[in-house]
């Protein structure tokens, strides 16, 4: 018992009273541990963050008509095959050709809430339509007709009839509440609710397409698609492959990169600790010789230097895991604009990894310490 106390007294004295030398090693371990815990945090957090980011780049599944068109009931039926908690947004679309000031234009009827969720990157100046009689117009349309938020506009629809040449026009008055900016073809459309579309056209709602945003991996996504296509006769479910696959590939590459950087940093830490330890052992040859002359066995020399090394590893790991969280938090906030929660498990893991890395780095230098000849203490300088 008393012996152990003296052991700790010696190694803490060595660390505390020889601070400047040990600081280099401690710094190396701390930086290593910081990057380790920081990157591991990001490693586990990136999929979550990236998932959210990628989902915001639109739908990853679409329902299309198996035959001519499909209904909201078909959509309901299709959705029953998808876990409710994985469903981020559903946006059904019905497209019709309409006219504003006698110029032809494409109108989309949709569920505004669903569209907002499945296309969160749409930037709308003004407001999304929230009730009947409100209209969102694409930026291109707004420019063509010099429309601004608050303007009134009349939309005309001519029913397609095969029998009579002159069918009556249907018109509906709208107020523009928002102008849509996407940088894509959506800017050439106008958007109204499905109900208004029904009223304007005088026809029951049939859908042309339905966009879905589902939060799951690509395997279960294809499962869903297959099941829905098979079991819902009106719908042909397809994956929007481009987005989902790139999501997975980019994630995999990012995680591999993080892993690689972590390994490189740990290796660098190890080299730095080994170099410092080698210098420490060289500098303390006289002391090692003295300890041996006083009767220290090789085992106790190893124990003492290892003890110092492992204690440094532990302290460095502890400091590093806290700094690492700060580091990961900073990265997360600046890159993904969201904060992460502290993983308690990472603390012991970082400390243990630091201690192991330090221990391995100390092996060779400490082995050389045991080769010191005690007789050197009787040799004059």
């Amino acid at each position: 018992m008393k012996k152990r106390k003296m052991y700790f007294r010696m190694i803490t004295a060595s660390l505390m009273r020889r601070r400047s030398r040990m600081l280099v090693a401690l710094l190396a371990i701390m930086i290593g541990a910081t990057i380790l815990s920081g990157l591991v945090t990001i490693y586990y957090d990136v999929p979550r963050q990236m998932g959210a980011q990628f989902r915001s780049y639109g739908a990853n599944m679409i329902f299309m008509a198996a035959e001519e068109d499909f209904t909201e009931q078909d959509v309901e039926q299709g959705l029953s095959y998808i876990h409710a908690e994985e469903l981020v947004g559903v946006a059904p679309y019905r497209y019709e050709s309409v006219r504003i000031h006698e110029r032809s234009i494409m109108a989309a009827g949709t569920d505004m809430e669903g569209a907002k969720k499945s296309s969160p990157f749409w930037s709308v100046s003004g407001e999304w339509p929230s009730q009947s009689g409100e209209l969102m117009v694409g930026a291109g349309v707004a420019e063509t007709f010099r429309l601004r938020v608050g303007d009134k506009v009349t939309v005309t629809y001519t029913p397609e009839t095969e029998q009579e040449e002159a069918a009556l026009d249907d018109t509906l008055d709208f107020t523009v509440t928002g102008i849509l900016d996407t940088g894509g073809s959506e800017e050439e459309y106008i958007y109204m609710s499905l109900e208004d579309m029904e009223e304007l056209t005088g026809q029951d709602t049939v859908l042309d397409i339905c966009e879905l945003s589902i939060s799951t991996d690509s395997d279960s996504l294809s499962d869903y698609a297959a099941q829905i296509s098979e079991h819902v006769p009106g719908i042909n479910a397809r994956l929007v492959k481009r987005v989902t696959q790139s999501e997975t590939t980019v994630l995999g590459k990012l995680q591999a990169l993080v892993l690689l950087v972590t390994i490189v940093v740990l290796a660098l830490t190890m080299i730095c600790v080994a170099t410092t330890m080698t210098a420490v052992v060289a500098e303390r040859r006289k002391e090692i010789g003295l300890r041996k002359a006083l009767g220290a066995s090789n085992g106790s020399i190893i124990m003492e230097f290892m003890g110092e090394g492992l204690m440094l590893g532990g302290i460095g790991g502890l400091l590093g895991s806290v700094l690492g969280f700060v580091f990961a938090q900073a990265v997360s906030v600046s890159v993904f604009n969201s904060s992460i929660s502290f993983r308690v498990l990472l603390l012991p893991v970082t400390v243990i990894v630091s201690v192991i890395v330090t221990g391995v780095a100390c092996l060779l230098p400490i082995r050389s310490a045991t080769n010191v000849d005690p007789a050197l203490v009787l040799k004059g300088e």
Partner: protein
Amino acid sequence: MSLLELKNVSKIYGELHALDHVSLNVEKGEWVAIMGPSGSGKSTMMNIIGCMDKPTEGEVLLDGMDLAKESAKSLTTIRRDKIGLIFQQFHLVSYLTALENVMVAQYYHSIPDEKEAMEALERVGLADRAKHLPSQLSGGEQQRVCVARALINYPEIILADEPTGNLDEANEEIVVELFRKLHEEGTTLIVVTHDPEVAEVAQRTLVLRNGRLDHETINENFTGHIKLN
């Protein structure tokens, strides 16, 4: 049986005979001084007696054990249990206090005992310096810490290699006085020195030259008291 017996001991480095057929007996409780010019083999002999080196030839009997035949590991044990060492360069652990330095010897020997270590410092007159680091102590004080460290485990032999070589006269006197006390308590002392004044307080003086025992003088006047100046 003598406590220590060297029989025809030689240490050869390549062509150089650092020790050349040296024979010597030291009885228990004896105080022996070893003199000789630089390079005459004094430290080499101390290394061999102190179990830190092995002779090339010959026998070294300590308490009847032949050190020349022991493994490095058991030499460490013998050194720890039977030998107290004092060096010219003091060799204190720089980051440990005077007290801790004494306790290090206890630590390797058996169990550290702060009270006993403190008593040893008291014996060398350094009780009030116990919490000082070596860098805060004068040369004489550092050497006295070494003496305290050497005697803490009640060794059979204290080996001192030029213990006063780095000390001024006042401190030399203090250290010699400590040796005298140890001798009176029955400790066997072997002291290497360049200084005739340190040598002549011992019971006898061996003079080495070119690795050989040149001659030996018995101090007729040895009284167990110091005769400095």
